[in-house]
């Protein structure tokens, strides 16, 4: 029969972190080359701001915009992340690459972590553009509270949570029929606690009233708790969802 054992290539199993880095660099290089996801999310964010403009144009002077801006920023972020998440798996699905990666002997959760990190980076990039833009359009009349800088923390925790849960749901809805509406229907109820906590914390930071701490720290702790629990659950369940 054929010659028994031909000289086989040496295979040194890479560490999980090395595989994570390879997958992440693939995502980043692909996005850097096409810039498809970041531009589509950025444009969507600008469009949402324009819709806000129409919605608030008449009332902007009379109402206290500061107390609502926390909520408006987060509404902007939720819908922008939805458009991004919908496209996050389009490359994998297009040429069946997800199966190519599933063929590699690696832990499925590494795929999850790499994809969640890349989604987090893209979402954070868009937020860095969209939030200041929002402030430019709506909050120029609002005096800057000393605690304004503190909105960074809820933004950070919220984006981590949304990227984490969103990546899991995007994997599930990637090859279903009504893909984008299904992702929204699943994403928003599941993300509600995080959203509620982040909006409260952001609004407290923006208003910066005397006892702003008690309206700030508790929601922040809740958001952090949500992130930890949800990312853990998604980490464990991802193996089932991706190879279904």
């Amino acid at each position, binding site marked *: 029969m054929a010659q028994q054992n031909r000289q086989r290539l040496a295979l040194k199993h890479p560490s999980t972190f090395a595989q994570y880095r*390879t997958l992440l660099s693939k995502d980043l290089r692909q996005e850097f080359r096409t810039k498809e996801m970041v531009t589509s999310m950025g444009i969507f964010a600008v469009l949402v701001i324009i819709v806000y403009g129409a919605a608030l144009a008449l009332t902007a002077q009379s109402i206290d915009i500061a107390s609502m801006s926390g909520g408006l920023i987060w509404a902007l972020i939720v819908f922008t992340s939805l458009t991004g998440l919908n496209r996050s798996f389009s490359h994998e699905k297009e040429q069946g690459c997800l199966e190519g990666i599933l063929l*590699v002997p*690696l832990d499925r959760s590494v795929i999850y972590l790499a994809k969640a990190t890349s989604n987090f980076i893209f979402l954070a990039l868009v937020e860095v553009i969209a939030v200041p833009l929002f402030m430019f359009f709506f909050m120029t009349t609002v005096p800057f509270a000393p605690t304004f800088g503190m909105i960074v923390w809820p933004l950070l925790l919220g984006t981590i949570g949304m990227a984490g849960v969103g990546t899991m749901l995007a994997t599930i809805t990637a090859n279903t029929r009504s893909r984008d509406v299904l992702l929204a229907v699943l994403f928003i109820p599941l993300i509600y606690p995080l959203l509620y906590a982040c909006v409260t914390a952001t609004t407290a930071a923006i208003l910066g009233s005397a006892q702003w701490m008690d309206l700030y720290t508790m929601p922040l702790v809740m958001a952090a708790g949500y992130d930890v629990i949800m990312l853990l659950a998604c980490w464990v369940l991802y193996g089932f969802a991706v190879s279904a």
Partner: protein
Amino acid sequence: MADELAIQARHLVKAFGTRRAVDDISLNVPRGAFLAIFGPNGAGKTTLLRMLATLSRPSSGTLAIEGVDAREHADQARDRIGLISHQPMVYPDLSAEENLLLYARLYGVADPEARVRELLDQVGLLHRRLDPVRTFSRGMTQRVAIARALVHDPDIVLLDEPYSGLDPHAVDVFDQLIDQIRPGHTFVMVSHDLRKGFSLCTHALVMARGHVVTADSKDALDFDAFERLYRETVGMGVA
């Protein structure tokens, strides 16, 4: 006898509820053999191949790939398998080299750059290695897919209807490549193309509705006898 076998499957079943896509199939594929699997659509050929590629878990039955149990130590089994499917599984926006480097690093190939260069040369795409795969023709993309499937030098090469969508010239180039990598590798091919599959294979297997209908080594029958047998068995199954 066991170590002689590349793939050993016992009573493989893939069922969900009462529907059995693959129903109690046992296979012994010796090392270096070329098994061609034929059968009508919906016979469970692709399901069987996906099970062999450890992409889907069998509902019951045992599967050993190169002596390694594919259910318990799936990772070790995956080191030995390369899959070429009608989907190329490469990223269109990345260049051919970047795609192969990605898989080479994921598999943990010792010297990825050298290995990738060698493979690209073997498939004759060295001159186009920096262009994104999006700009490649269907035939060239299929050759990148072959290179991707071989990047970690697998012992077993699984082919899922590799000829679909290829023009005659691309088919010839594909056959040439298969012959090149033939020595020392075991092949399992799912195909509709009786003539092409029969010419390449050492063993043939016909499936219908999840069962093995007939199975024989090639020298036991010539092509016309095989074609009549295929028409008869598959015809009867579907009637």
